């Protein structure tokens, strides 16, 4: 008698899809440990509820919807927001666009809309990995002034991101 494979097809597909989910989450939290925890949460929530034989497109949509939900919970928990306050912050955590990786050209486009100083401080700090001291030396400034500029530049980058998505 023909034996059917033990592993459900939908789960197999979902495992491969979780690679995409991981990249999606990593692009938003910026570190491996949190990305792994959140991907695990997505898997645990979504996998048992997936029907056998579901098409890959349905599985992907389901996983990314779950990933958005998990990310929303992550930010609200880490920032100590209440349930009601969480609602206010969902726009930040839930991208309206379809899931996609944070592309380098998107980052360049955002940086390109910042003033020269803001763009420079973020490029040196984030893209080239300079320390504050190195950034200060490069920009003929002080560490304290660079810290302030970095914060203002990040606020400005977030604003550009909101306006362009």
């Amino acid at each position: 008698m023909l034996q059917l494979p033990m592993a459900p097809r939908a789960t197999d597909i979902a495992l491969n899809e979780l690679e995409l989910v991981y990249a999606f989450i990593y692009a938003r939290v910026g570190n491996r440990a949190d990305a792994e925890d959140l991907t695990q949460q997505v898997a645990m929530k979504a996998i048992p509820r997936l029907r056998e034989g579901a098409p890959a497109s349905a599985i992907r949509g389901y996983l990314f919807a779950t990933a958005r939900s998990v990310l929303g919970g992550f930010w609200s928990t880490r920032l100590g927001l209440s349930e009601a306050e969480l609602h206010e912050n969902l726009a930040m955590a839930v991208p309206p666009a379809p899931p996609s990786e944070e592309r380098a050209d998107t980052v360049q486009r955002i940086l390109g809309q910042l003033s020269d100083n803001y763009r420079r401080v973020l490029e040196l700090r984030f893209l080239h990995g300079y320390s504050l001291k190195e950034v200060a030396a490069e920009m003929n400034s002080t560490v304290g002034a660079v810290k302030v500029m970095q914060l203002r530049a990040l606020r400005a980058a977030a604003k550009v991101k909101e306006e362009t998505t």
Partner: protein
Amino acid sequence: MNKPEIRVDKIVSDLLRGRRLRLRGGDAEEKAAITAAARLVAARQGSQRMNPAFRKRLESSLEAAPQEPWLTRRGAFGAGFGRWAGVVTGGLIGRAMEPDSQLTPGPPGRLGGELINPKPGRWTDVAALADLVEGQGKRVTAGGVGAYLFRRGDSVNAVSSICSHLPCELSWSSGAGMLNCSCHPVSFTPEGESTNDKYPLPALNAVQVRVTAAGRVEVLGTA
């Protein structure tokens, strides 16, 4: 209390060293800067794949996961499990939901639509009654509560600005006279009820609103 630039730089430095996001309540003020920093750090590293050891752990835990029977979100609500499911899975918005293609029709009627009751709450002046146009939704915020206001004569009703299906911001479509979800093709009436006949989603949560004697509209939000 650290100055914000010092606090944000600490978070940035941790991220650049590959550490977790260690945040605290006061960081909410700089949430936009922090999320921008996380995205920039990730962009620097490019698209990431799972570490092989993590993938193996994930596979093992998936194999050990119980194969739960289907439980629709509506079923959970009907059984009074909505909030309980949220607690179990780690947060209200963390409730597991089935994909749209898997939704099954059920009995019609208004579902969900709980009253948002912030604690501690505070009445916030959000608009003048005279500024609200009948038949048009107006998006307002009261602390952490986002809502759409709808005027009916001298009274106003308010519903949450968050979809009851997925935690996505709704947008007001003046042409259609509906609140549309930005994540899925679903919409709600100004009363907060789902317009989908085949699968009526839970109604939007209701937001507490009042009109003062001076003609000001106030919403109960977070303190």
